[in-house]
């Protein structure tokens, strides 16, 4: 390994969590998954199921990206690259759903395959 690569890796590793911390994060992720499944079955939460499940999924997503993929500790440039893709994906998602369900009233029931 070149001196450059070695130096860069040492800088990155300075902030990475220890294996014990990874296990704690995995336990939290498992608890969040159990909570998601419980929420899906609870009739009392049926009115708020989408925001609650959305929040739990975002929390899990952020923990995996931040800690397991080390985006929380790595260069901001990597963060910008990934977040740009994510923002475009959310924009695409919003535009498509708005067009179909907002302006056009959704895909016609008698449409292709409908």
């Amino acid at each position, binding site marked *: *390994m070149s*001196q*450059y*690569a*070695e*130096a*860069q*890796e*040492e*800088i990155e590793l*300075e902030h*990475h969590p*220890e*294996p014990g911390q*990874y296990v704690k*994060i*995995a336990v939290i*992720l*498992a608890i969040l*998954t159990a909570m*998601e*499944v419980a*929420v*899906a*079955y609870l009739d009392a939460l049926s009115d708020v*199921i*989408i925001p609650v*499940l*959305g929040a*739990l*999924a975002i929390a*899990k*997503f952020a923990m*995996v*990206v931040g*800690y*397991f*993929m080390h985006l929380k500790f790595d260069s901001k*440039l*990597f963060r910008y*690259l*990934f*977040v*740009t*893709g*994510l923002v*475009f*994906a*959310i924009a*695409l*998602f919003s535009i*498509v*759903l708005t067009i*179909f369900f907002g302006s056009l009233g*959704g*895909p016609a*029931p008698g*449409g292709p*395959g*409908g």
Partner: protein
Amino acid sequence: MATEELTSAVQEHHTSTGLDNTKMAMWGFLGSECLFFGSLISTYLLYRNQTADGPNSADLYDIPYTSVSSFVLLMSSLTMVLALAACHRKDQRGMRAWLLATALLGMVFIGGQIYEFTEFAHEGLSLEVSPFGSSFYVLTGFHGAHVTVGILMLLLLVGMSMFNRLGPDDSRKVELIGLYWHFVDIVWIIIFTVVYLIPS
């Protein structure tokens, strides 16, 4: 080595960003994959209620079964990050064991998906029967294909390590494949919520 010296060594390198190009490319690729899966998830949401004469999601989905699959994939992210940690410690045996564990968990997930697809096919859900069937199989099938590619890459890493083709200094290779694997996991986090848990 002191942090100042390390920073200086990095800055002396001639990439314009001072960052590793392969890792930059991987993050760019993962950003583009967000768009790919974003479009597939959008399509699924559009057509999830268009079941034609075929079965609907309420008839098919087995939430406890899929929850176990999700848990397995989530834990594979832990074993992957432990493999990288072992690699950084220059612990080749530990790295191989964790990589193998990750690949095995991935195989369990794929086995579960094959079983699920078979059950759904028996229930009458095919690619052609309805827009719901098409969008479901395309979304989850592409995810499964990504997991399969990840398993192959993990096994390749294990093989390279066993034949001394992956030295203690090649941690970047493990890290890049790890990033891909974690990405596959976060895509499933979204699919599990949007496809299986949120009712139609």
